[in-house]
C-alpha cells in the first residue's frame, strides 16, 4: 500500500508475527517513500513496536518480509543497522557519562573514525538543538533534554531512515513544538521517518501519511486528509441549548427527526444523545447541509431555546477513535454470533 506510487524506501509486505497462538501482526503491508514522515498510530499492544522491531532487525517475522532502501530486514541486518536510526521509547542512559562522551561512544560503535566523529557530535547536537548540553551528564538530563540527546544519538551515523518511538512523550508544550519543527527539518534533509505517538494532533501536523493499526491489523493508511474524508462520511453536530430542562425534549425531537429521515431513505440511521450538564444535544448523520437545515428551523418552531447549532470538526483523534470503535464493534458482533451459534 503506497500513497503516491513513486519508489518506496520502506516496503512492508504481508508481515505476520505470531507468538504461539497470539497474532501480534496480521499480514501488514505498506510502503513509505523517501522524505516522507509516516505517523504510526494504534492503541497500546496494537503491534506498533513489534513492526518497528522487525524493521530494525531485532525481531524475526513469522511470515512476510520488509525491506529498507533495498536491504532485507531479515537477512541483511548489518546493512539495516547502518541504514536505520532507531530511537526507542526508553532513553538508555549510562551513568557518569557526559553527553559528548555518550555520543562519542555510539559514534565509535557505528564505526565512525575519530575526527569525523567529533565533528559529527557537534552537527547532530546542533540539529537537535542540544549544543548547550554537550558537557552535561546524561543521567542529570530532564526528559525533554533526554529526547533531544536521543535524537542526536539516532542521527550520529547519518541514517537514511529514522524510526522514532514516542519522541514527544513527556515533553512540555514548547518542547513538543520544537520536536515537531525538528521532524520537519529532518524530512527536508531527505530523511524518511516513521514516528509513533499517542499525541495524535502532533502527528497530524507533521505527517505526510498515517498508518492506523489495531490488534496487529492495518485499519487505515493514507494521507491525513484522505483518512479524514473516509471518516467524515458520518458527521457529528452539536446543538447548544439555553436551559438544562430542555435537553431531554430536544434530544427526543432530534431522534424522531433522524428516524423520519431514515424512513424516507434520505440518510442512514442517526443517533442523538443529550448531555444535561453541558446543556447540549449531539447527533451524527450522513446527511448533507441542505437536508440538515430544516432541523434547526423545526427545533426553533417547537420552541427549543437553541443558542448554537454547529458541526464538530473531525481530527486525527476522532479518526483513530472511529477506526478503533469500528474494530471493537466488529469484534463484539463476532462474539455475539459465536454465542448465538453455540
Amino acid at each position: 500500500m503506497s500513497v503516491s506510487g513513486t519508489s518506496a524506501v520502506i516496503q512492508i509486505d504481508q508481515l505476520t508475527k505470531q507468538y504461539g497462538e497470539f497474532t501480534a501482526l496480521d499480514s501488514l503491508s505498506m510502503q513509505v517513500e523517501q522524505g516522507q514522515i509516516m505517523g504510526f498510530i494504534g492503541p497500546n499492544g496494537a503491534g506498533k513496536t513489534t513492526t518497528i522491531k522487525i524493521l530494525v532487525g531485532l525481531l524475526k517475522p513469522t511470515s512476510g518480509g520488509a525491506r529498507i532502501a533495498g536491504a532485507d530486514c531479515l537477512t541483511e541486518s548489518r546493512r539495516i543497522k547502518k541504514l536505520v536510526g532507531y530511537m526507542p521509547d526508553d532513553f538508555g542512559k549510562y551513568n557518569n557519562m557526559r553527553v559528548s562522551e555518550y555520543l562519542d561512544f555510539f559514534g565509535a560503535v557505528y564505526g565512525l573514525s575519530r575526527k569525523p566523529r567529533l565533528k559529527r557530535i557537534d552537527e547532530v547536537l546542533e540539529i537537535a538543538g542540544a549544543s548547550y548540553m554537550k558537557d552535561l551528564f546524561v543521567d542529570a538530563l530532564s526528559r525533554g533534554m533526554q529526547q533531544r540527546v536521543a535524537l542526536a544519538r539516532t542521527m550520529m551515523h547519518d541514517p537514511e531512515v529514522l524510526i522514532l518511538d514516542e519522541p514527544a512523550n513527556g515533553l512540555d508544550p514548547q518542547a513538543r513544538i520544537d520536536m515537531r519543527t525538528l521532524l520537519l527539518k529532518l524530512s527536508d534533509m531527505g530523511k524518511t521517518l516513521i514516528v509513533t505517538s499517542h499525541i495524535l494532533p502532533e502527528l497530524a501536523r507533521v505527517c505526510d501519511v498515517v498508518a492506523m493499526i489495531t490488534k496487529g491489523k492495518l485499519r487505515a493508511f493514507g494521507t491525513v486528509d484522505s483518512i479524514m474524508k473516509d471518516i467524515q462520511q458520518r458527521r457529528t453536530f452539536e446543538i447548544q441549548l439555553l436551559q438544562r430542562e430542555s435537553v431531554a425534549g430536544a434530544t427526543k425531537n432530534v431522534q424522531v427527526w433522524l428516524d423520519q429521515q431514515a424512513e424516507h431513505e434520505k440518510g442512514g440511521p442517526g443517533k442523538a444523545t443529550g448531555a444535561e450538564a453541558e446543556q447540549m444535544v449531539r447527533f451524527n448523520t450522513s446527511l448533507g447541509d441542505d437536508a440538515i437545515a430544516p432541523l434547526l428551523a423545526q427545533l426553533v418552531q417547537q420552541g427549543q431555546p437553541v443558542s448554537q447549532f454547529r458541526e464538530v470538526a473531525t481530527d486525527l483523534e476522532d479518526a483513530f477513535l472511529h477506526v478503533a470503535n469500528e474494530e471493537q464493534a466488529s469484534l463484539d458482533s463476532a462474539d455475539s454470533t459465536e454465542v448465538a451459534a453455540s
Partner: protein
Amino acid sequence: MNPVIRREFVGILRSPRAFGMLACLTLVFSIAVLTRWPSDASVDLSGLQSLQVFRVFGYGLMTGVVFLVPAFPATSLVNEKNSGTLALLLNSPMNGGAIYLGKISGVLLFSLLVLLCSLPASAACFAMGGIGGDKFFFLYLVLGLLALQYTTLGMLISSYVQTSDSAVRLTYAAVFALLFLSLLPDAFFRGTGVGGEFAAAIGDWTRNLSPLPAIMEIMGQGGMGSLGLKTLPGFTRFIALAVVSSAGLAFWTIARLNHRIFDQSRSKGVITDDRGTKSRVVRRLLYIVDPQRRKGGIPWYLNPVMVKEYRCRRFGRAQWLLRLVSICAVSSMVLTYMAATGVTSWGVETIGALLVLLQVLLVIVLAPSLGSGLISGERDSGGWELLRMTPISSFRLVFGKLMSVVWTLLLVLMATLPGYVMMVLIAPELSLQVQQVLVCLLWTSIYALAISAAVGSLFRSTAVSTSITYVVVISIFLLPLLVWLGRDAPFGFESVQTALLTTPVGAALSVIEAPGFESYDLLPASWWIAGVLSSLMFLVLGVQVWRLSRAV
C-alpha cells in the same frame, strides 16, 4: 501490623532467591551434622566429636549470616527511592521511624528464618552431648546481633547511594572491612609498645568489631589475634559494640528518612578545562587522571565498549584505580618490611598468606561488583537494545566489557608486586613460590570474573544480579576455606584437599606455605580445574549473550 513489615517480609519470602538460600542452608547444615553423626553405639564422653561438629556448624552459620544477610538491606531503601515508592511512603501518615521499623523488621525476620533453618542441625549437635546449652545461646546471640549490625549498616549505605549495585558493593566492602580489617590494628600493635597502652586498648576494642574473635571464643579456640594473652571475654565486647553501633546506625538512617533524602540538584557538569588556573592545578595534583577533563574521543585502537565501561563507572575510573593501586602497593611493602625488620613475630610465610588473603578479598569485592552488571546493567538501563541496533559484533561487545574488568583486576594484582619483590629479596629461595602464587592469583581473578560475568548475565535486574553474584562468588571462594577450618575433624585430609582444589586460593596459600596449608599438594591440578571451570563460565556467558542478541 505495620504494613511495611508485612510487605517487606512477604516480599522477601516470595522471592525465589530467598527460598533458594534457605533451602541450601538447611541442606548444608544437615549434611554437616550427618557427616559426623556417630555410626556406632559408643559414646564420646570427652565431647570432642560434638565440639568438632559444633565448630564447623558455628563457622558455617556465621558465614551464612555474613554473606547472605547484607544483600537484602543494602538494596531496600535505594530501590524504594529509585522506584518512587519511598516518596509515596513519606507522603503517607507514616513517619521515618515507622518506615524504618517496617523495613528493618522484614529483613530481620528473614535473618531469623536463616537462623531457624539451623535449629534442627544445632539440636542434633546438642544431642551428641558434650556441649553446654550456654554455648548455643551465646552463638545465636552473637549471630543475631551480627545480623542486626549488618542490616542497620546496609540500610544506612542504602540511604546514601543512588544505585542498587553500588549499595550492594559498598555494603559488602564495609562488611569485609568490619570482619577482617578490624583485626589488623590489634594484630600489629599488640606487644610492640607502639602508641602505648591507649593504642593497644583501641586495637583491642577495634578487634572486637569483628565477630570472629567472639565466635572463636565461643568455639573454645581463644580469640583471634589474642596471641595467648588474657583479655576480656570477646563476645561481651562484641555484644556491647554491636548494640551501640546498631543503635547509632539506625538513628542515623532514621534521621535521613525525610524529604531531604531527595534533595539532590542535577550536576552542572563543570569541566576542569573550563575552571580557573588554580582549580585546574589543584585538580591535576589531586586526581593525576582527572575524570572531569574534556575527553578527546575514543581512539581507533581501543574497544569503544571497554572505554564506555570505564567512563560510566564511578569507582572504576582511572583516578580511583590509581588510589587503590597505590594503597595496595604501599601496604604490601609495609607488611613485608615489618616482617623483615622483626616488627612482628610473623614469618615471611604468614606475611605472604596475609598478602594473598587481602588480595583475594579485594578480588572478591571487585570482581562481582564490576562483572555482574556487564550484561544485566545494559538490560536494566535500556542500553542493550541500543547496542543491538549498532553494527558492533557480540564478540567485540563482550570482549570489550570483559577487558574493562580484566585491566582493573590486573592493576590490583600488580599493585602488590612491590611486596612480593621485597619478599624475594628477603628470602631469595621463595622466588619460585612467589611466581606460582602470582599465577594462582591471576587464575583467581580470571575465575572470579568468569563466574561474576556468567552468573550476572542470567538476570535482568542489576540489583538481583549483583546480590546473587556476590553470594555465589563468596560461596565458591570461601566455602573451601570453611572446609579447611574443619581439617582433621570433621573433614579428613582428602576431603580438605579436594575442597581446596576447587579454587586457586587454596593453591596460593599452600604454595606460600601459609600455616595450616603446608601439607596440601594442589598444583598444577588447581590451575587446570580453575581453567576448565572458567572456560565453562565464559561459555555460559557466550551462550547467554548469543541468546539475548539474536532476533527471534
